[in-house]
């Protein structure tokens, strides 16, 4: 995990940036719907992970596909591309 690039920020020469510092930006706050995975139905095909533009759904070490709500923007591609409809989009509570 990269440190917060805004902490003690000093402009580097030529405004060069450290890699992977976008992790500080929790895009999960953009979401209006969240994907919910039904692990019973899931056949672990990996389509959801493959097509996610936000690297926000992954197979964890326990072999389950889980949604990273810190970054998931709720686009719904994972639910749409799931061949067994194991993911549903659920409205976020306001």
């Amino acid at each position, binding site marked *: 995990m990269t440190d917060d690039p805004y902490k003690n920020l000093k402009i580097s020469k030529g405004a060069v940036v450290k890699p*992977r510092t*976008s992790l500080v930006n929790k895009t999960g706050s953009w979401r209006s719907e969240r994907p919910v995975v039904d692990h019973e139905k899931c056949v672990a095909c990996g389509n959801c992970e493959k097509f996610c533009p*936000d*690297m926000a759904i992954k197979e964890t070490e326990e072999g389950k596909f*889980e949604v990273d709500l810190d970054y998931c923007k709720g686009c719904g591609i994972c*639910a749409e591309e799931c061949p067994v409809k194991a993911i549903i989009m659920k409205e976020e509570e306001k």
Partner: protein
Amino acid sequence: MNKDKFKHGEELFCPGHRACPGCGAALTSKLVTEATGPKTILSMPTGCMEVTTTPYPESAWGISWIHNIFENSAAVAGGIETAYKSFSKRGKEGYMDYEDVNFVVLAGDGATFDIGIRSLSGMMERGHDVLYICYDNEAYMNTGIQRSSSTPIGAATTTSPAGKESFGENIHKKDMPSIAAAHGLRYVATASVAYPEDFKKKINKALETEGPKYIQVFAPCPRGWKHESKNTIDIARLAVETGLYPIFELEDGQLTNVRKIKDRKPVEEYLKAQGRFKHLFKKDGGGEVVENIQKIADMNAERIGIDK
């Protein structure tokens, strides 16, 4: 939240980038880094993926990455490649071997088809060992959806709007793969975010080919094309299944590995799924434009041989 669970420290393209939900170009970026691996220097022009991934002091990139200006990413990559060639020849310490580094450009269609074509043409002609990948979302999205020379017939953009006297864009999409192939490139390919394995395979094949190579990948833009973010992959698939975006390779100028389509779908299915074409179904005379678009698909089918 335990970050390690999602391995965000290992990714070469990281979350936290500010691309819109369902962005085809963001998905492209992920797939590109997965295929190239870490020994890569990526040059990117100004555009959506540049601004959404690198607002100072943030960067979504886990690989070496450089942006300079809108119209020169091919020349910048050529300069980097030449520098490494020199370092290896001269035995300069502290630099990876020329043979071990992938020199890659990832650029939008505006930067590729229009403003950067001089840079791209020069890079290809000189034979730099650079893979140029164009994510094609068929308009200038970063500035607010203006038409580029990649915008297809009938698409409404903010500078080719539908109106009383207009059915949207009225000029044919420029045939960039042929232009690339005409430079004598050994490897040219089209791909789509709907087929990630195919795209990644093509990137690897391209990287194994010495010299310049060009891949154009179809990358829908929900905001610009006016479709729901969840439909990005559906629409990318439909573009191929209707024959409007043929998937093929051009190896030494010869058409190879065409993705065959069984029972091409009518173009209406693709057009109706997107707001940028909706005027074609509401306005008198729109049917004629749809017919013309169907003819484009039929012509593609004949020319490229996509029918199974």
